[in-house]
């Protein structure tokens, strides 16, 4: 049980005449303006194969997210990385989101276009599980985004008006398990794909700053490519990013439970953001997209 409530961290003054007060706000964007009704576009349910971690129980994560004022979380499944029976993975995800969390979790099932009859998985995600989008793991499923089957999948998703979340990485490749053959995901091909599929909506998950910076022209050219902030780092990184990529295309994501939720939450504190930007990143953009 967490014994350090976030409000305590924000409010309790330090002792001592020369002690630095906690969170001494320097601008209008006081952290108490973290909006109610936050949306986290990047959480994952069930268990990471290589480690047990806090919040890898669905109810535990739901309680934790609610403590931070999150009332919607877009959820994929860790099972999607290595299971081949994707139908069962998506069925379990849909059921888990229905049964647990009291409506907090929105399921994003997976489609692996390298599997036989993948289009049936897409159909079920949309028509049977009523998912608003899908989450792809090309680095774990071993395909480039411009593979013919991948393009076919993206076309089909666009026709169904499904948001496509593309996970670029799950963990630091330098520290991955030696048996995991994770392939880097090249996103530059998305420029032409988005050009030829104007109805396609893509969200890059777990993109580090250097990846986003290289993709700035793509974000400027295409209004329906989005990213989350979970892997963004560097001093006051969010503040910098929204000067480079339109604010409407940047969303709050935590990569929970793999990362501490506090990492993304505190990034919003470290950056100087006006109220309108904060609300856009933390909830309004998500509500507009899905």
């Amino acid at each position, binding site marked *: 049980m967490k014994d350090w409530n976030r409000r305590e961290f924000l409010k309790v003054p330090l002792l*001592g005449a020369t002690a630095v007060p906690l969170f001494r706000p320097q601008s209008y964007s006081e952290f108490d303006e973290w909006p109610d009704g936050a949306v986290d576009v990047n959480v994952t349910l069930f268990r990471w194969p290589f*480690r047990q971690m806090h919040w890898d129980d669905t109810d535990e994560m739901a309680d934790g997210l609610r403590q931070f004022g999150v009332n919607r979380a877009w959820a994929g499944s860790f099972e999607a990385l290595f299971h081949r029976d994707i139908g069962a993975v998506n069925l379990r995800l849909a059921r888990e989101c229905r049964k647990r969390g009291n409506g907090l979790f929105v399921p994003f099932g997976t489609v692996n276009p390298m599997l036989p009859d993948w289009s049936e998985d897409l159909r079920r995600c949309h028509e049977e599980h009523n998912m608003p989008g899908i989450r792809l793991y090309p680095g774990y499923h071993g395909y480039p985004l411009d593979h013919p089957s991948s393009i076919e999948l993206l076309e089909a998703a666009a026709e169904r008006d499904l948001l496509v979340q593309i996970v670029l990485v799950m963990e*630091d490749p330098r520290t991955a398990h030696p048996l995991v053959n994770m392939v880097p995901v090249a996103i530059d091909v998305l420029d032409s794909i988005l050009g030829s599929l104007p109805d396609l909506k893509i969200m890059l998950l777990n993109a580090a700053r250097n990846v986003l910076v290289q993709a700035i022209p793509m974000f400027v050219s295409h209004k329906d490519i989005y990213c989350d902030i979970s892997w963004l780092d560097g001093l006051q990184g969010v503040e910098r990013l929204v000067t480079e990529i339109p604010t409407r295309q940047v969303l709050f994501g935590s990569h929970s439970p793999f990362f501490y939720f506090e*990492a993304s939450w505190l990034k919003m504190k470290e950056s100087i953001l006006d109220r309108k930007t904060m609300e856009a990143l933390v909830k309004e953009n998500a509500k507009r997209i899905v």
Partner: protein
Amino acid sequence: MRIWDLHCHLSGVDGDTPSQRMDQLLSAADRMGIERICVFMGMEWAYDPEPDELRHQNDQVLEALKGREDRALGFAYLNPAHVKASLAELKRCVEEGPMVGVKLWVARRCNTPEAEEVITRAAGLDAVIYQHTWLKLGGTPPTAGGGNLPGESTPQEVAEVASKVPSARLICGHTGGNWELGIRAIRPVRHVPIGIGGSYPTRGMVEMAVRELGAERIIYGSDAGGRSFATQLAKVMGAQIPNQDKELILGGNLRRMLEPILTRKGIRTE
């Protein structure tokens, strides 16, 4: 909660001069409630600096410290590939200057005779020694550490040199990156703490470290400006550990480690 940050840089920060960059760091530190930061290395990275470059890097930090001695402490960047120059810098910056620690990076592994000489001399000054470590996946077949740079140390090598120079105030930097292995590697060398900064905020890291090493052996640092204060503070804030452990990790342990040299230099911690 008095937060001191073990690990900050002038690189990756906005500003044209060391002073401007230091002010930017401190401004962000203010927003996050960080009382004091330790800074090392100059505005541009140098993996294997020649003596002139080494001096230049330390000059930039010295410039950045001026007028901000109540908020920032400096560590001297040394390069065991140039022992004579490194020992000269140690004397200039630490023994006779305001710096309180040493940064060792990737030019030479820490268990080499040259590095051991530098470490031993730093130990004699009570300087805190931040030794960068990683265990990068690489090689054929891939193994942890197989992808390291030729001069890039591992936690195992820190353990080795720490055993040879027990008086050295060594810190195992980055916890080896691959912290599940790094924590285990450093575990037997009970006087060596880990620096937890400069890696992704992966859940479970601090919990494992507290369980296996004890809270007294964990030191918060950020690796800002390449990293943010936010992601690195999150490792402690989000950890399922008692508040008193968080207080130690966020500042108590670093102050305790620095105490001898700060006392020697008349630098107050309050």
